[in-house]
């Protein structure tokens, strides 16, 4: 078990280096860096620009800069933002909690509603539950999240006044939990509607497949009730593809809500990413990429461990 985890960790290292180096090279080779923007404004002399270039470390070759960045990373130093002169680590740390709260609520809601709905649809095909399930996945697959957000803001926030249009807390008020939930409802709903469709479809099809297996007939013929058969025998074996589908949304916990965060002015990682890209704030873009990359790799590792726990045929090798 320990050996298996070590092996998987070793395997993740080249992927991490590959992705971060690719992004680092890409954004550094792009035309119109922060210096070009300053230079074109004409406010700085050439010698000042050179001095700034040296102080930002931009005079060194690309590969050297990448390894300096990597070295800093291991000391917990992600560099300083070009735009705000704050530490990148600090800036990201402030944004993680709101992002996790938003996408976490959305995905958790999708799991709690989607999986039971998928089981019900598989258990009683063509029932009202089944139709509800396919309707929800239909909406999730065909409505772009930004348009759904606009519709919700227009109908529920502006016309009915039932929800605030943006932000995380009402300005001026204290930061109460009720206020937070009130602001969270609409964006979290939008974040959840897309994954919930996938969860319903995946759960439905894999439970249906398992219900046709011989051992389900055996369980039925032993006289077990339908509920026991579905919950204890079918669901557990149908769970593996469902776990895969759910795990595929884990990376989106961190960086997936770019559009929704932007529309609802939610102070998370996604909106930080947009502002950093617009102002070519490379250290922040790198920091966010690194964070997402790390989360993706960690999630994949955890997923493999869950598979092994669910399916005794999978051995730790």
């Amino acid at each position, binding site marked *: 078990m320990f050996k298996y985890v070590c092996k998987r960790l070793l395997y993740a290292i080249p992927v991490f280096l590959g992705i971060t180096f690719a992004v680092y090279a890409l954004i550094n080779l792009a035309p119109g860096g922060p210096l070009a923007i300053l230079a074109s404004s004409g406010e700085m002399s050439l010698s000042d620009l050179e001095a700034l270039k040296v102080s930002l470390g931009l005079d060194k070759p690309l590969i050297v800069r990448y390894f300096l960045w990597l070295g800093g990373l291991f000391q917990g130093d992600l560099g300083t933002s070009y735009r705000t002169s704050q530490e990148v680590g600090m800036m990201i740390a402030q944004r993680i909690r709101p992002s996790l709260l938003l996408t976490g609520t959305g995905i958790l809601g999708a799991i709690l509603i989607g999986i039971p709905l998928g089981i019900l649809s598989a258990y009683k095909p063509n029932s009202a539950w089944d139709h509800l399930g396919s309707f929800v996945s239909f909406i999730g697959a065909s409505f*772009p999240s930004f348009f759904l957000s606009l519709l919700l803001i227009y109908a529920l926030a*502006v016309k009915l006044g039932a929800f605030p249009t943006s932000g995380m807390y009402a300005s001026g008020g204290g930061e109460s939990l009720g206020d937070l939930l009130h602001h969270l409802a609409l964006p979290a709903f939008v974040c959840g509607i897309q994954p919930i469709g996938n969860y319903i479809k995946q759960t439905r099809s894999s439970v249906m497949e398992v219900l046709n297996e011989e051992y389900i007939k055996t369980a039925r013929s032993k006289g077990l009730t339908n509920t026991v058969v579905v919950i204890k025998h079918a669901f557990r074996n149908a769970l593996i593809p469902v776990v895969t589908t759910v795990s595929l949304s884990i990376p989106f916990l961190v960086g997936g809500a770019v559009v929704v965060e932007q529309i609802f002015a939610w102070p998370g990682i996604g909106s930080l990413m947009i502002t950093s890209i617009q102002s070519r704030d490379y250290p922040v873009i790198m920091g966010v990429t690194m964070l997402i990359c790390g989360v993706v790799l960690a999630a994949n590792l955890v997923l493999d461990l869950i598979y092994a726990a669910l399916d005794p045929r999978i051995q730790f090798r």
Partner: protein
Amino acid sequence: MKHIMQSQAMKKFIRNKRAMTGLAVVALLTLSVLLLPLVLDLDPYTTDREAGFNQPPSAAHIFGTDDVGRDLFARALYGGRTSLFVGITATIISVLIGIPLGLIAGYFRGIAESIIMRTADAFMSFPSMVLILVLVAVFGPSILTVTVVIGVLGWTSIAKLIYGNVLSIREREYIEAARAVGQRTGPILFSEVLPNAIPPVWANLSFRVAGAVLTESSLSFLGMGVQTPQASWGNIIFAAQNLLVLTARPWVWLPPGICIILVVIGFNFIGEGVRDALDPKTR
């Protein structure tokens, strides 16, 4: 035999009501965005000084005018051209990259397989929106970059599909027979393996177009995609980021939004229809 199979699949597709609805919607929208601007002589770029800015729908401008007095109906139609162009071209790019890579990985196995499929896994687990944003920011937002970036990043699912099919096809007897009679690898790949590996990709193509239209409109909505004066459904809706436009002028952003949804539903229905028609398990 193959011919009969195809015509059976075609019959199944034609009998599928959802698929035919999808096809009708896509065809109708495509014809409208291509022909209506020519027939009605519409201009999406010039300001109509007589009508003025931010006008509600009227006889002259049935979707109203935007903040610089351009006809929103014309912009919605031209926007449709852009969105469909990006969706279809990006899908073609994904296919051109995905099919050869999937074929190589599945047929030759070995190092090529590990490199290609591990790279595909890495791409697939990364939130694509973040990657697309970085790339678009680096190369500058335009129709060209948006199309190429969406297309290039879309190769993974097609490569995986082809790879999976090729893995089972390469073990079949007819491939072994082709090798035994001394056929070279190139001809085997193109005349034996590829034709049998492609059919499941057809359904995926339609889903990919829908996905590419969604991605393009999201990017343009964020201001990181198609730039004005060129129109795209997403960048028309961009105006609704302003709360005033959102609340007081729904005619600006509702029509292009509904168009996006119709196109996405249309292509998804077509994709489902193709998938069911090619699936020998369904009748």
